[in-house]
């Protein structure tokens, strides 16, 4: 296993390394909790989004069917007149909300479902199929808005899960083991240095004693 070589084998270095290791372990714990939370959220959201998607497809098919029927019954002329009558346009608002630290978009629509008398066309000059088609499109738009919000949330969550899981894996398999190895290496190195010091001191002491003995012998000889 790799270890860091840029750390000085000093006590201060070891302490700094230990604090980094502590921090990495803490980060690992928190991030893996966040990851679990996000995965749970995705598991909760997925069936909902799927349901919304199915609804979207069903509603889209209904509008396809109705638009064919409306074109057959009213022709381009009737459809264009109804389309030109629109007075209030639907509006979409975008905001954000925080979900496990991930910023997800919230899409809300206003003026989506309108009362039949507020749509702009006259009741007496149009036929049923226009109502049905307008209803179908309003429902489709509402579903699109709901689905867009949920899908974007899901996508953001998935991107973040990927990012966070990479980080968690990096912490788990690379950063923490490396720091641990480095710590062990440093400890071993410091022990080695200590041992070297002891033996050096021992040798110095022996040499000093030898020197003293030699001095004493010489003095005796002089006398």
């Amino acid at each position, binding site marked *: 296993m790799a270890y860091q070589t840029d750390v000085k084998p000093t006590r201060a270095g070891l302490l700094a390394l230990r604090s980094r290791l502590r921090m990495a372990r803490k980060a690992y714990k928190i991030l893996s909790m966040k990851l679990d939370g996000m995965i749970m959220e995705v598991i909760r959201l997925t069936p909902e989004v799927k349901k919304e998607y199915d609804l979207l497809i069903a509603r889209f098919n209904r509008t396809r069917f109705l638009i*064919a*029927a409306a*074109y*057959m*019954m009213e*022709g*381009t*002329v009737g459809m*264009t*007149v109804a389309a*030109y*009558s629109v*007075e*209030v346009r639907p509006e979409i608002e975008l905001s954000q909300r925080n979900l496990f630290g991930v910023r997800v978009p919230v899409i809300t629509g206003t003026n989506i479902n309108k*009362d*039949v*008398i*507020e*749509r*702009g*066309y*006259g*009741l*007496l*000059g149009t*036929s*049923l*199929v226009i*109502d*049905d088609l307008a*209803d179908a499109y309003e429902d489709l738009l509402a579903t699109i808005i709901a689905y867009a919000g949920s899908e974007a949330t899901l996508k953001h969550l998935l991107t973040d899960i990927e990012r966070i899981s990479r980080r968690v894996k990096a912490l788990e398999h690379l950063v923490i083991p490396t720091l641990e190895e480095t710590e062990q290496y440093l400890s071993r190195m410091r022990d080695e240095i200590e041992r070297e010091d002891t033996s050096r001191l021992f040798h110095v002491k022996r040499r000093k004693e030898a020197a003293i003995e030699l001095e004493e012998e010489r003095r005796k000889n002089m006398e």
Partner: protein
Amino acid sequence: MNRIKSRRTKLHYFPVTPTAYIYICTRLTVRKSRLIPRDQYMRLLNMDLNQIIRFIGETEYQNEVNELAGSLTGISLIEGALTRNFAETYQSVISITPGALHELTERYVARWDIWNVMLVLRSRQFGIPVDQVRQVLIPAGWIKEARAEFLLSQRTLADIIDGLKGWELHGVLEQYVAGGYHKGLFAEVENALYMSFYKNLFRDAKSGIRGGNTILPYLRFEIDITNIRNLFRLRAGSRINDIRPYMIPGGNLHPEYFQQMYPVEDKQQFIAGMQQAKILPILMEALQEIRCDNQVCEADAADIIWKRWSERKTPLFSMMMAVTRLRLHRLDQISRRYPFSVLPILSYLEHKRYEMINLRAIARGKQFGLDPDSIKRYLIL
């Protein structure tokens, strides 16, 4: 206003001789027999778009198809030719009807004027390009092509309304649009125009014209059907409490009746109300036709219609189509009973209108890739 009144009075007392009736009715009966017959529709159902273009290009629509073939193709060519031919046919009927009949016919086709006026007003207010509007105008009534062009060239709503001086519904229009545009104005104006349209039609039918009295039950029937349709529409898509302003007066059923029916939630009460309206036999016939089964009884029709009512949905449009077929059938019946009256004229006009609608339905159905059996359900034969 005085000028319109004098014009109307003059036409009312223009003598329509029995010979004139015979002449015009015979001419239109001959024209009616030239409309596309049922078996040809069955052939058309199996053709593709180009074959349909070729087919209509060899019938009454030849001129229009030839004129438009240079600029349009496919479905837009068919629709363009159909609409143009429709407008021209209506114009020619108006031009050959004499005296008071002329006036009644003009009044009957005034719904296309309302259509055009509303289109022009909306296009001006919402800034829709003139070219797009021109394609969907149907100059089939009092507003002919030249006047439609003139209206399209006007810059403000007030100018457009000034340009409509002399139109019988000008007064109504002026009254509503005088205060300037506000949200929901056009829907109000459109409803008011249709109300006046029916009112004028009633007044004319009662004015002593031959066949006038016989057309009244037909008109009442049409108004009832429209009101019942709108009752369902309002219930399905609206939260308003007072629906009386949206109900056309003059039918067999009073607007009060619809107001009473509107909040009904009890099945027995609803069915009793529908029985009172004498609508169940009509719906039963419609249902028999849809299911091709003569065993269907009134109770079945009542069940279906109650289901739609209780779920706050609009009636099935196949049901409405069947009712339209029935309405046309009734018109035919009474027009056969009074062969030299105003009825053959109206019968021809309606048949012509539904010929356009049928051809359009077939062409559109083909364009959307529907099978012939599905398209057939949208035809009014």
